[in-house]
């Protein structure tokens, strides 16, 4: 795990390529025949990048995100994460890669309801084998970072939607990932709360962590340095802001 909070050090070689997708496609076998969700996408995400992926529903945004996050492997093409060919990695190696290098934020938070906010944040650190005292201390720091220090012992059912998403972001940052992937992180939130989450994600990105957000929300996308427009599984356009 790296030092800092969400908080990678922006001065430390953050521009190196984190994930490199070279002509990747993803085809799903369906009863009615194969469906190509992502077609021939080439994309590089470097340290400190802030990328938004937009497009109509079903255009392959989430599938691309899952491939960048090493959850899915490409059906064709090459996906390199930190120079490693993800397609050649075993499930266990990809799990380890996700655990240590990648953070996920989901639309529905997926916090575990039987654990407190602090325990939810500790989970990935526990899986990474961090000692209990260090996990506790880091979870406390992360809760402070997302502005929820006072809610450490609250269960998800005792938190608002925005608070749950902040805990989920803290959980995603637990092992100091190089890449943070967010799939519709404001999809379940009202405009004001969504803006707070967007600001928090900006802050994480400013700390040096590469950020890729899939969103329908133009306001959230406008905060990104690069906006990719997808249609029918392809990147239709890329706009730098």
């Amino acid at each position, binding site marked *: 795990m790296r030092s800092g909070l969400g908080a990678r050090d922006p001065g430390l070689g953050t521009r190196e390529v984190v994930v490199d997708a070279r002509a990747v496609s993803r085809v799903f076998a369906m009863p009615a025949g194969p469906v190509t969700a992502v077609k021939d996408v080439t994309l590089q995400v470097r340290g400190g990048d802030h990328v938004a992926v937009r497009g109509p529903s079903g255009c392959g945004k989430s599938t691309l995100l899952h491939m960048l996050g090493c*959850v899915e492997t490409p059906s064709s093409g090459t996906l390199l994460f930190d120079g490693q060919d993800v397609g050649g990695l075993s499930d266990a190696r990809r799990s380890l890669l*996700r*655990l*240590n290098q990648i953070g*996920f934020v*989901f639309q*529905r938070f997926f916090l575990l309801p039987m654990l407190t906010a602090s325990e939810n944040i500790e*989970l990935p650190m526990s899986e990474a084998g961090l000692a209990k005292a260090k996990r506790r201390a880091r979870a406390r720091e992360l809760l402070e970072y997302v502005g929820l220090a006072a809610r450490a012992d609250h269960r998800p059912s005792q938190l608002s939607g925005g608070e749950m998403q902040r805990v989920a972001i803290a959980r995603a940052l637990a092992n100091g990932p190089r890449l943070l992937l967010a799939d519709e992180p404001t999809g379940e939130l009202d405009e004001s709360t969504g803006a707070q989450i967007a600001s928090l994600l900006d802050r994480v990105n400013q700390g040096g962590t590469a950020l890729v957000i899939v969103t329908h929300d133009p306001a959230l996308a406008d905060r990104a340095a690069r906006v990719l427009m997808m249609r029918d599984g392809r990147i239709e356009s890329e706009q730098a802001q």
Partner: protein
Amino acid sequence: MNAVGFAWRSLVRQPARATLGIVGVAAVGALLFDMLLLSRGLIVSMQDLLDRGGWDIRVSAGELPVDSRFIPNALDAAQVIAALPSVEAALVIREAEAQVDRISGPPLRASFQGVTTRSSTSVGSALRAPWTIMRGRDAEQPNEVVVDTDVASSAGLEPGSQITMRASCLSDLEALPVTRLQVVGIAEFPFESTSENTIGGTFDALQAACGGNIGAGANLILVRSTGDPDAATAAIRASQPGLRAATNTEVLGQVQRTGFTYFRQISSVLTTVTVSFAVLLITVLLTVSVNQRLGEIAALRALGFSRTRVVKDVLAESALTVGIGGLLSLPLGLLLASGLDRILKGMPGIPAALHFFVFEPQALVVHVALLVATALIAALYPMRIVSRLPIAATLRSEVMG
């Protein structure tokens, strides 16, 4: 948080479902435990009854363990047997029907067991009668008897009381004089059934009660070997070819082949049924639990939890449910066994001291092993679900849902 801690939290999260699983396992486990106690209980208990008193060989005129034929010239036969080098002592048992007078109510029907003096050979150690003294002392004189607790309570007898009885040694039509004997002890007769009443005394006491008309026959000769019952039995067979001699182990084997086989078969069938039921119960509960948490499990996998880890979580949840239920099943099983034992012992002809359910460490080991197997087998299907969970598709469908 390790897999066990995580599983514990998952159980606590759904207290109703967890309770259902634990109670189900406790109930099924109690039955399973009882079936294991039953499968060997009769054997262990019968062995205990046979071994009581230290007599390791039985000699009779017919098939052992039960035959109503008399051993002719039993006293002479016992004398010859007792003189064998591999035999330490022999004890002749003769039974007669008796009626004990009561202050109120009709006379009490009882069986009178007369045994030869427990020093038929020149052994150094005292020989014990085939009954156990509970209160008072053993009968040693021709005017002394011991009675079982039922006779004592029905006729209001205590050690020191006088008993008036008529014994019928050769024929029911005999009209014998009343005999007065002194009760010197209350005893437990190992092979006596709950519906029987028994009195014990010396052979001379029985002789006196029967008006000296006892004859030379006897029902059974108990023999104590010098340490090698097989050799002693072979020697007895050689010296008394007209009699049947068997070691306690052989008698037990015979009983096992005839009477107890049914209980073992019933026990095996019910054990299989209960284990299958436990497996189904836990499988269903775990599968429901896992299916309700697919989104969370997929999220954890996306966050880097390995396939092994999420499988371990499910296994730990199964182990916890079965473990807690299994622990509860032990006292529950013992309680149930005690009730069932009472009911089964009510069957006619069953010795009151015989137990159908007997605790043995081996039964506990098998119980634990079966529960471990249950936890493992029950978790197989839900473990398969989480191990094959498509992360991306599950996350997508959870959002769509």
